[in-house]
């Protein structure tokens, strides 16, 4: 008669081993699912940004009637952000685009209403770009820091202000 070489585990040892394996496996799968759900791969996000004028008399109210449209840009940390900033003024009024530190950006200013017009200037690592009327600036940067960061036109404070929201 063949003798069994299989050793029987005690109940305590069996429960302990099964319990530990289940806990480790559950934690590993759960953590992976949690990470996968929250993770968003960095991507390029494009926005069209315009100057806007609210219908009030700025001399009467004492503040500029200029605003940004949109005044909120929301991206994930790590995203590449491309902003097509168009000065659509019907007067000869300049606007600029300034970003608060730590952000800097690259900008290509086109001498016309679209990106198909000749390049007027190419700027790298700057914090301010001026856009004349009927010009378009293509502003690019990577959202490397999470938080809320102001962008504004320094010619028309405080109304012409927006916020870059970087989810981290």
């Amino acid at each position, binding site marked *: 008669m063949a003798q069994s070489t299989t050793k029987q585990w005690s109940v305590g040892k069996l*429960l302990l081993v099964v319990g530990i394996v289940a806990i480790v496996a559950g934690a590993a799968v759960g*953590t992976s699912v949690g990470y996968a759900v929250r993770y968003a791969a960095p991507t390029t996000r494009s926005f069209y940004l315009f100057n806007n004028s609210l219908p009030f008399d700025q001399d009467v109210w004492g503040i500029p009637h200029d605003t940004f449209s949109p005044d909120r840009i929301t991206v994930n940390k790590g995203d590449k952000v491309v902003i097509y900033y168009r000065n659509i003024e019907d007067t000869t009024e300049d606007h600029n685009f300034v970003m608060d530190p730590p952000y800097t950006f690259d900008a290509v200013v086109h001498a016309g209403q679209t990106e198909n017009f000749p390049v007027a200037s190419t700027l790298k690592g700057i914090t301010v770009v001026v856009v004349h009327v009927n010009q378009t600036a293509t502003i690019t940067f990577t959202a490397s820091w999470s938080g809320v960061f102001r962008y504004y036109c320094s010619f028309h404070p405080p109304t012409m202000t927006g916020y870059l929201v970087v989810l981290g």
Partner: protein
Amino acid sequence: MQTMKRSAVLRWSAVGLLFVTGLTDIYYGNFNAGFYENLWYAMGTIYIFTAAVIAANFEPRFAQPAVFGYAIFLFVLWATTAFATGVGLDTVAYLDKAIEALLVVNMALLIRSSRSPSLLR
């Protein structure tokens, strides 16, 4: 005789808890989950299947530890996922997981009772 009776009681209470947990999981997937509904359906269906396996007393030496491990696995899976994502933290989920914790204890007692020397003799 006393051990056999105790083992049978634990087995049928485990069947009841498995069935209730399975139904709660399916209900939750249908109404509350908000994400990974299919996962809740699968978990619930597996629980109901294991209820049948435990009721039939099919291969108890394998089936009982497997169900014990499965219940712990799902509890920890829920805990880590819920706290990582903020989803699945509500009354139905808490109730479901409380029953699941009870099931883990029930299965541990059932395994101990089923492997009692008086039953193996």
